[in-house]
């Protein structure tokens, strides 16, 4: 599977892909994108890097991506559950605008946090599945 061209190509596109994923994640509030898509893209990038590298995808830390699923669920659930302790129904979101120097008015929404959880689960899922299947 290893090919030099691919390896070189991936070396440069990998960070770009991750950056694009981050962009999609942040853009998702107001234009197409969001946690799912960003997560899938990130996972694709990671898988690509496996393919390009000499390592077999099955090598390396086994637990990280499984744990990532757990963390993602944890983040999502916590975001949803916090309002309960403040006396609101489960899943109540809030948002607000904060003035950040240099960037101007930035929107902060608790829903983003939930989206982050989604992102983590998607990445964890795809990478775990692909590693499991190809890492025999």
């Amino acid at each position, binding site marked *: 599977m290893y090919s030099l061209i691919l390896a070189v190509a991936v070396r440069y596109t990998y960070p770009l892909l991750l950056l694009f994923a981050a962009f999609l994640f942040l853009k998702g509030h107001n234009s*197409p994108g969001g946690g799912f898509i960003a997560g899938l893209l990130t996972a694709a990038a990671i898988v690509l890097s496996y393919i390009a590298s000499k390592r077999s995808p099955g090598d390396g830390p086994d637990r990280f991506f499984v744990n990532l699923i757990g963390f993602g*669920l944890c983040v999502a659930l916590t975001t949803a559950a916090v309002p309960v302790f403040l006396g609101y129904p489960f899943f109540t979101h809030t948002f607000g605008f904060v003035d950040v120097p240099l960037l101007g008015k930035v929107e902060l929404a608790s829903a983003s946090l939930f989206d982050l959880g*989604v992102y983590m*689960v998607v990445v964890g899922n795809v990478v775990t599945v692909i590693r499991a299947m190809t890492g025999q």
Partner: protein
Amino acid sequence: MGAVLIALLLPFAGAILLNLFSAPRSARAGWVASLFAGASFLAVASAALGGIEQPPTLYLPWAPALDLSLSLLADGLSLLFALVISAVGVVVFTFAAAYLEPHEQRRRFFCYLLLFMGAMLGVVFSSNLLALFVFWELTSISSFLLIGFWHHKERSRYGALKALVITATGGLAMLLGFIMIGLVCGTFEIPELLGRGDLLAASPWALPAVLLVIAGAITKSAQFPFHLWLPTAMEAPTPVSAYLHAATMVKAGLYLVARLGPIMSPLPLWTPLLTVIGIATMVWCSYLALRQSDLKGLLAFSTVSQLGLIMSMLAAARPEAAAAGLFHLLNHAAFKGALFLLVGVIEHEAHTRDVCELGPLRKQMPKTHLLLALGALSMAGMPPLGGFISKEMFLEQALHLGPLLAMLSVAGAVLTAAYCFALAFGVGRGRKTEGASATATSGAEAPHDPHFSLLWGPGLLITVALLFGLFPQSLAGALVAGAVEAAVPGSSLHLHLSLWHGFSPTLAASAVALGSGYILYSRWWQTRTPDNPLLVTDRIYDFKLEKLESWSKAVTVSYMSGLVWRYNTIILCVGVAAISAVFLCFPVPQLQAWPARSPLVFEVAVALTAIAAVIGTCIAKTRLAAILSLGASGYTLALMFALLGAPDLALTQIMVETISVALFLAVFVFLPSWRPPETRPLRPGHLALSITAGCGACYLVALARGHRTATSIAEFFIENSAKLAGWHNIVNVILVDFRGLDTLGEISVLGIAALACYAAIKMAPQRS
């Protein structure tokens, strides 16, 4: 009523305590159980001596919403049966304690026996039809367990199952009848039902209810044609046979007839049907008894025949007949219980109960034989034993039944006398053939009278049978009179039981019966070799059971293919058929177009590509081609999403499709050693089915979309997405906010899927 409640609870308490505090094979279990039975008997006796309280019921609610209560009723009828149950119970318990071998599971045995006793008391004390049914079923179950107590024997298991199958079927029929009665009359309480018989008579359910209740009664009492289970039930340990299958359980059917008589006897068919069944059973089964060589088989058929006699009496719902039946029931409990126990003793000592293999008992076991003969003579109706009086009363009543039934009754009495003589004299004389004697003597020592612990029980019962003959009025008069009063309410019977009734046609009939019986015995029975004929009903039962098994197998195998495409075919066929049926039954609505726009050329091209990709996937010859076409169809789909104003979907679809295709390829193509898939010819049936289903689904959606009745809830999302949730990408807002819970579930699915894949790959297969 307190005493009755205690009597009812004691056996159950005993069963529980026995289980908690006794070793499985404890020798003490029997004595402890006997103690509980004895206490229960004392409680019943004290209730009986205390006279009948007014009102004789105790209401114990169970599920009031269902009119289900465990209320108790202690009138004369209940007390008579309860006395028989508990008194015979005490004798049988003590007998069994001495009878069972030390290695047997005594705890289990006595636990079952106590359960049975409690259930039986429950049947006769219940004042609610449903509660009666509860205990009724419990007797069937405990009888199943007791018959199968020696469960390693094939015959025991067979007998247990047969008894259960027949009594449970009858029980269910009876339940249905009870529910009908309850629904019509508005109550399940027996005392209240008594006043509402006319409601039942006026209802269309009267006849079914009668038939169903009769079915319950005659299966339980092993009446013709359901007499088949009792002989095979004789595989039970002898104390069980004595208790359940002679003295008590089989009498539950009689109790039911007596108890419901006041309500049911005015209804059509009740009296005639039961009378005919009773007399027929009496004649036919006494004939069968005469042909048995197995002593227990003989007694079993004799029990059935005697029960038939009592049944015919109780069905008549006349006070005199009821008195005859109930008094005979008392006698029967005494002598038949004793006879069974004695056969048990004989089997215990001689290791056989076949008439042809027994030695001269009169010499070998004189005491046992004396008791056996007395019991048999009481059954034959020989004065001065109790059986004589009740037989007289029976014959007197039978003369009222019309010439044919009267003649049959006398014939039954003749046959009964014949097998009783056979039991009394034939067995004692010894019919052992030479060959059999050689094998018997070569083995153990010759049989002899057992220890007193095994004899006093039957002795006591025989004594009671004797005393019933000598002092009938003082011993049983009040009891029977009280019971008659309950069974035939409003009767004014001046019952006087006595040995001597003066010269009458009845006496002549008695004499004829005894005389002819003796002749039959000496001329016919002694000269032929008894066998154990296989019953026709038995054959039917076996055949049906076998059929049930083979038929169920055939039916199940025919559709449970285990092939997944057949499952799918069935689902699709059912779906298509159901939807077609809907369109056949209801007017088909017009297909209405919702605001549409004409497609651009580009869009048509994309759509055609997608269709082509799908067809390509279906007809692909290699794996790689199939997977790549699948990918192509997915990407064109993404394009369509984009064209339809769903950029989020398009992006997601592209990513998912890429990863899916990668997975497909990883699994199906790049792994070595895979055979190429066989190419399969086109399957026109499947194709037609799938096209019908696929196009049908689209048609339905289009149809529904044209008939929208209200605005979509999505208006709310469009309106409030930016205002209340702060974001502008509505789809994303729906996903994380409006319908965030869906997303939470969805990422759970993703997580689980990953775990499952991981586990499936990493875990070495378990060898099972």
